[in-house]
């Protein structure tokens, strides 16, 4: 049996008096590619931030690679949305990728090892030739791949993506998926997305977050059903299960 990369037990979290996540039990095995979906305000991003150690759960436990999220945070490669970055910030592509190595030392210049792993990561995402280009001069898809390289350069074992398909065209999306499935051979990948179309096409299971959390293997999903249901802007995961504003409800067919 594969070891678990993420194990969450009886976890809950609230912002002030507003309960965001309750009774979360989740186990994700190593080298899986998992999508996290759910309606806006359902708690996807909160769950991600909890797993990154940026927020503390009110109850229950979160284990990432058998460690607490804070301990494991340097084994997680986080890929935020590329549009959040200041387009005027003066950095080259290589500068950005090297930032993945910055937590490895207390200060001083980057070592040869740091440079090598940054260059390797750039190779992995096909941006080696662009390494001296200004980050600001890249296309959206290239910026995203730069951020993936930054996460890879830290020799992460897990990759967390926040809305990878937001502001990326369909060509870049296809390239992104090819890259992800290549990386998935060695890494566990978690994709937070409202774009269920992208997620359900590619991942092995889907986690539906709407205050509580349910996990579904994609093999149980009928592709056409998902298309139909999500096309109507409803966050429904399985033909007998819905992830609605009121929380999970089970329909009896």
């Amino acid at each position, binding site marked *: 049996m594969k070891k678990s990369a993420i194990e969450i037990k009886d976890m809950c979290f609230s912002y002030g008096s507003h309960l965001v996540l309750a009774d979360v039990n989740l186990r994700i095995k190593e080298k899986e590619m998992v999508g996290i979906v759910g309606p806006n305000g359902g708690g996807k991003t909160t769950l991600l931030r909890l797993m*990154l*150690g*940026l927020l503390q759960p009110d109850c229950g436990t979160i284990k990432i690679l058998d460690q607490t999220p804070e301990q494991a*945070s*340097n084994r*997680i490669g*986080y890929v*935020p949305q590329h549009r959040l*970055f*200041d387009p*005027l*910030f*003066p*950095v*080259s592509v290589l*500068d*950005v990728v*090297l*930032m*993945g190595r*910055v*937590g*490895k030392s207390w*200060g*001083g*210049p*980057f070592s040869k090892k740091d440079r090598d792993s940054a260059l390797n990561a750039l190779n992995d995402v096909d941006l080696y030739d662009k390494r001296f280009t*200004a980050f*600001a*001069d890249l296309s959206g898809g290239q910026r995203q791949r730069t951020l993936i390289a*930054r996460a890879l350069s*830290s020799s992460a074992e897990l990759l967390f993506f926040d809305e990878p398909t937001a502001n990326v065209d369909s060509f870049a999306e296809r390239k992104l998926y090819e890259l992800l499935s290549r990386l998935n051979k060695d890494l566990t990948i978690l994709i937070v997305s409202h774009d269920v179309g992208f997620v359900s096409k590619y991942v092995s299971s889907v986690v539906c977050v709407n205050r509580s959390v349910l996990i579904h293997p994609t093999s149980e999903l009928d592709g056409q059903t998902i298309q139909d249901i999500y096309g109507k802007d409803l966050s429904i995961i399985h033909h007998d299960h819905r992830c609605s504003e009121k929380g999970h409800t089970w329909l009896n067919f």
Partner: protein
Amino acid sequence: MVEFLKDLQTYSFLQYAFLAGVLSSISCGIIGSYVTVRRITYIAGAIAHCTLGGMGIFRFLQKEYAFPVTPLQGAVVASLLAALTIALVKRYGSQREDTVLSAIWSIGMAIGILFISKTGGYNEDLMSYLFGDILMVSRADLMLIGLLDIIIVGIVLIFYNQLIAVCFDEEFAKISGVKVEFFELLLLLMIALTVVLLVQVVGIVMVVAMLTLPAAAAGHIVKRLWHMMVVAILLCLLSTTGGLALSYQPDFPAGATIVIFAGLVYFFVIGFKKLKNAA
């Protein structure tokens, strides 16, 4: 201009002024680049204006009670306190940040004005604090400016990678294990020290100009942070020496001339870039 160059060889006050411009350009270019890319001009402005409080109190103690302190030391204390307060509020406070900054900005000034009005003698010092008086820089001031330069350059050389990571993406830096709070505080304290340097050169009111204009112009010329710092240092140098030289013969206020010079450099760079892009 000829007279400036001739007098520069003879008068020590002019040599001190010239050196003050050169030395402060180093910190100004480096820290100005951080202020510009982090978009925290407003924080720099609040710290700058707050220094008047420290200067006023220390000058009061010096003149009225003969304490062995100088207004410049008061500025150092006030700016560091302001930086510390801002860091604490950012970390723990639930207040609106701009409200807190405005409070520090104006209360600091008010305290300064109160103490200056209750200090005997002429109050012309107030004008030199607000608008700078580079020609009054003493040997001791120069030593202090040099020392602050060494501290700032040293810190930035050691922690350049950490600081750029925090400025570019705080959250990612934190996840990677960088002590983000520490480096934020460090940056604020360095801004505070640089503000004190620049208060000597251009005065409280115009500090923000020197922290943004050269760095922003540099940002239009080069595309990496340390390149930006080097170019910003050169542009600062150009502005301080150019402004000082131009102001000398017609007896213009040096601080204002320096700031106008920096402004012209900034608009020239932008205009040149626009023309180049259009061509």
